[in-house]
Every structure is written in structure tokens, then in C-alpha cells.
């Protein structure tokens, strides 16, 4: 149907397919990260964007993009691997901060407020960086901030695929520990589950996945928070052996749908993905809270 040199083939290979693959990868990574955070904190409102992981990634990417110009490591900065690494570190760092604060703050709501504060703090640092940077850098950054799954090229896609596959792999190897976390530390310990080690791996996996997605697609809100709840509405289980793969699939589907909407069928205009996920995600979460009266992990 498509000849090697045809425009359709060009569009398919250079634009549509990378975009679809990015949606699948990003959706499953964010949703998987969201589910693991909800289980780890035993908090239904936890998610990569809510607790500031996305902001942490943004901060390090911003530092890399905006400050890189003044350094002598331009080639390093342009490698997708370095952006991925920076973003992952940023996400994991915030995760570690939240975990250490969570030891003192038992209250679910208080933890969310801490997450919001961390988001606010990192955003303000990013604003300062923007203020002191030049116009063309600023535009690059602003476009990135709005989030898009359409700008990934094949070399970035390789990084995304490798990193997210690793992240999802680590997550799947954690099902026993994740189930154990639902019972709390004491019971888990009595069942010979090493919670401490699992926590480290979950931080690494989530940081990596949320980091690379944020690095190449910009901050995407609500997918991590909403998908686990939507999936639990359809499949009412708590066992991560079923829940994890289901949530990965659900995230991929949701992000593909969001992207179709962002495409504005019949128009050449493309809306920012972040706006769409929030537009769908926010009402969904509100509807869930009202319908279920209380949502839980």
C-alpha cells in the first residue's frame, strides 16, 4: 500500500508510528509508576505528578537544557541518554525525599500537600532558570513543558523503549513485594518479604520510567493517578500479578485515546497532550470520588 518513497510511508514511519509507540510506552510507564506509588504509600491519591516526581524530572531537564548552553558540554547535552538520565535522577530524587518525609507524616492529605509544595518549589526554580535564559531556549522549553508524544525521533524512541522496558521488567519482578506492602511492613516482614530492598527498586523503576517519559514527552498529568483507579473499577482485584499488567495496558490505551483527541480529527491543529489528559483525567477522578464515595488502594 505504501511505497518506500511515498509521502504516506514517510508520515507513517517518521511520524505516526513513533508517536503510537511513544503513547503505548509512556502510558504504560506512567500508569505502572502511579500504581506502584499508590501501593508503596498506601495512598489512593499518590501519583508521579501529584507527588512531584514529574516536577523533579522537569527541573533537572531544565537545568540541562537551559544551563547547558553556558557549559562546554553541548554534545553531551544533546544525547537523548543524558536527558533521560537527568530526568530519571530528578524523578528518583523527589521520590526519595517524599519517602523520607512519609516516615514522619502518616496522614494521606499531609503527604499530598508536601508533594504539592515540592512541585511548587521546583517549578519556581525552573521559572528562575527560564527568566535568566535566552528566548529560543525558552521556546524549546515551553513547548516541551506542554507535553507531546509527537516529537520523539527514532533515536529517542530507542532510549524510551530500553528504559521503559527495564522499568516495567523491574516492576513485574516486584509483584510479591507490592502485594506485601498492602499488609504493611510488620506483616510483610513476617512473610519473609524484603520491603526495604523492594522500596529501593520501586524508586529506581518509577524514577526511570517517569523520568524518561517526562524527558521526551514533557510532563503528562493524571495518567499515573487515574489509570490504576479506572482499571480497579473494571477489574476489582488487589493482586499486583493481575493489576500491574492490566494497569500497563490501561495506561497505553488511555494515552492513545488522549492522543487521538489531541490530534483534533479533521483538523491540522494539534493540541498539547497534557491539556487533554487533564481534561479527561480531572473529571474522571472527581466522578470516581463521587461514585465510590471513597477510593482506596
Amino acid at each position, binding site marked *: 500500500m505504501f511505497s518506500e518513497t511515498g509521502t504516506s510511508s514517510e508520515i507513517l514511519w517518521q511520524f505516526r508510528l513513533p508517536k503510537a509507540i511513544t503513547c503505548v510506552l509512556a502510558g504504560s510507564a506512567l500508569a505502572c509508576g502511579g500504581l506502584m506509588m499508590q501501593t508503596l504509600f498506601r495512598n489512593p491519591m499518590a501519583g508521579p505528578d501529584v507527588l512531584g516526581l514529574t516536577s523533579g524530572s522537569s527541573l533537572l531537564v531544565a537545568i540541562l537544557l537551559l544551563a547547558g548552553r553556558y557549559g562546554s558540554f553541548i554534545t553531551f547535552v544533546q544525547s537523548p541518554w543524558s536527558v533521560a538520565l537527568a530526568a530519571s535522577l530528578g524523578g528518583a530524587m523527589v521520590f526519595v525525599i517524599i519517602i523520607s518525609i512519609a516516615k514522619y507524616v502518616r496522614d494521606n492529605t499531609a503527604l499530598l500537600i508536601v508533594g504539592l509544595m515540592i512541585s511548587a518549589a521546583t517549578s519556581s526554580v525552573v521559572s528562575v532558570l527560564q527568566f535568566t535564559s535566552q528566548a529560543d531556549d525558552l521556546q524549546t522549553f515551553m513547548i516541551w513543558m506542554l507535553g507531546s508524544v509527537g516529537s520523539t525521533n527514532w533515536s529517542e524512541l530507542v532510549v524510551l523503549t530500553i528504559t521503559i522496558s527495564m522499568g516495567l521488567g523491574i516492576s513485574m519482578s516486584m*509483584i510479591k513485594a507490592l*502485594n*506485601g506492602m498492602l*499488609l*504493611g511492613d*510488620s*506483616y510483610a516482614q513476617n512473610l519473609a518479604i524484603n520491603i526495604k530492598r523492594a522500596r529501593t527498586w520501586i524508586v529506581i523503576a518509577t524514577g526511570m520510567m517517569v523520568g524518561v517519559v517526562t524527558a521526551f514527552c514533557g510532563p503528562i498529568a493524571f495518567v499515573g493517578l487515574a489509570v490504576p483507579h479506572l482499571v480497579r473499577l473494571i477489574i*476489582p482485584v488487589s*493482586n499486583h500479578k493481575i493489576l500491574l499488567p492490566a494497569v500497563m495496558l490501561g495506561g497505553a490505551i488511555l494515552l492513545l485515546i488522549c492522543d487521538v483527541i489531541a490530534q483534533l480529527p479533521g483538523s491540522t491543529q494539534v493540541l498539547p497532550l497534557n491539556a487533554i489528559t487533564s481534561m479527561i483525567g480531572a473529571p474522571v477522578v472527581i466522578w470516581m470520588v463521587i461514585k465510590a464515595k471513597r477510593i*482506596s488502594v
Partner: protein
Amino acid sequence: MSELDHIALQTLNLKIGYKKDDQVRVLFEPLSLTLTKGELVCFMGSNGIGKTTLIKTLAGIHPPISGSITRNFPAAIVLTDKVSGNLMTVRDLVTYGRYPYLNWWLTLTDQDHHLIETAIKKVHLESIANKHLSQLSDGQLQMAMIAKALAQDTNILLLDEPTAHLDLNNRVEIMNLLRSLARETGKTILVATHELDLALQTADKIWLATQHKKIVEGIPEDLVLDGTFDNEFQLKGFDLKTGKVKHTPYRKTLIQLEGSGPEFLWTKNALERNGYEVGPSKTQVTVTFKEGYPEYILSLSGAEVKFESLKDLLIRLKA
């Protein structure tokens, strides 16, 4: 078999408590305690004295400050910790008991399935095994937690307040279950509890945490008769030796009571609760039966009046 073969768990000069920075809070004097095979031990003491900490330390999930614990078998625990995961079913929860034996993919063998179903049957939750935990009553949830510990298939069970917040019926059911488990399966069971009356009637042995940071060990009857409980609980108006609440005979009327069986005991209870003293007197109440129903005959200065209920008898007496 030597004495040693019977020991399930033993502590030697065990100090338990909390270390925070440089401060050490020790909860008890060094403890040297022994749990033997097949015995049900009730661990009693007031709130906040350190029952939970001892249970967790014995289970190996809280570090001791010093001293040693010898566990000859693995131990399963039932704690008061809240479990999240409202979508978890009873069977899911019981399956957790098999986790120490499962691989990372949680592959269940026939043996695992068998132990899970056996544990569910043991606590009579078969009919609601697929219900979500959020749909259970407190008593059913506690039973499910016990089933989880049973599925762990350990020789030692350590339970922290398994009967807290339950009604009398559920409390008795749980204590009876533990009693029969100890007898039939030879499990060693340690239960931290406030339920003095239930503990006295079911435990083989009592560990009583005292205000002087000691744990006194003994069989229930000895501790009742030698006054250890009285000293410790400072019982206000409850006579442990008779198992009754103390009544003041404020009416200063002696009533002689004749009869037998539960009807006699409850008539005595009714009289004492209403301020009468039971003893030799000219006023006499006789408990008899008429066509299978109790009848109360009041003999007062030669005259006899019959009553069908204690309520009517009391109205007449007070008149």
C-alpha cells in the same frame, strides 16, 4: 523426650524496647520466658505496657535491645495493623500465608491450595471466601487474619489483641478456636489480650505484665488465688475469686435461698444485685419447677406466695 524437646520459644535476659538516637527506653526487666509446645498462653497487662512490642520482638520483626531469643520454629503473627486493599478477598488474604514459600511469580502448588482452603475452613469462612475485606464484619476480618496465620503453617502463633473491638460471641469463638488449635494441632499460641475472664477460662498459662516492669508467669487459678491479679489490676468492685461483681447489701435484709442449678445462681444474682443478702433467715425463697418452668416461692412469716418470674418476686419483696 527431654524437657528441651518441648520448648518452642525461649528468651534469655531479653530486654525489649526502643532505641532512638542515644536514648534507650526499656519496657521490662530482662525477661527469661519459655513457651512450650501445644500450650495456649495469654499475655495480659494494661494498655501501653508493651504487649505489642514483646509480640513483635518475639516474632523477630522488632529488634531486641539485648539478650537472646531462641525460636525453634518459625512464628506466624496476627497484629492489630490495618490492612489496605479493600478489593482483597478473604482468599487473597489467606494466600499471603503461603508467601514465605512462594517464588517471585507467586506460583501456587496443590499443597499451597490445600493449606489455604484448610485454613479457610478452620475459621468457617468458606461461604464468604470470595468476599472483599471491606464487606466483612470486624469478627470475620479477625478470623480471616487468623486463617492467614494458619496458612503459614508454623508451629508458633503470636497474636496481638485478636479479640479487641469484638462482641462477646466473637471473642468466645476466637478464644475457643485458639484453644482447640493448641490442643489438636500442637501449636504454641501466645495471645496478648485484655480479656481477663476469657483468659482465665481458656489459657494454660498466663503471662502477667506488672507495673514493676516484670512479667509474672503462672497458671490462671494460682494467680487468682494468690492475689497476683488483685494486686495488679486493682480491681474496683469485681471479686475475682467468685468471678462476680461485688454487691453491697444495702437493704440490710437477709433472705434464705433454697434450690439448685442455674436458676438458683441467677436468683441469687438478682437478690444480691438488688441489695439483699443471702443467708439464714425467716424470709425464705425456694426455687422449684412447675411443668418445666421455674417457680419462685416466697415464704414470709408463714404465708406462701408463688411467682412465675423474678421480676414479680422482686416487686413483691420491695413492696
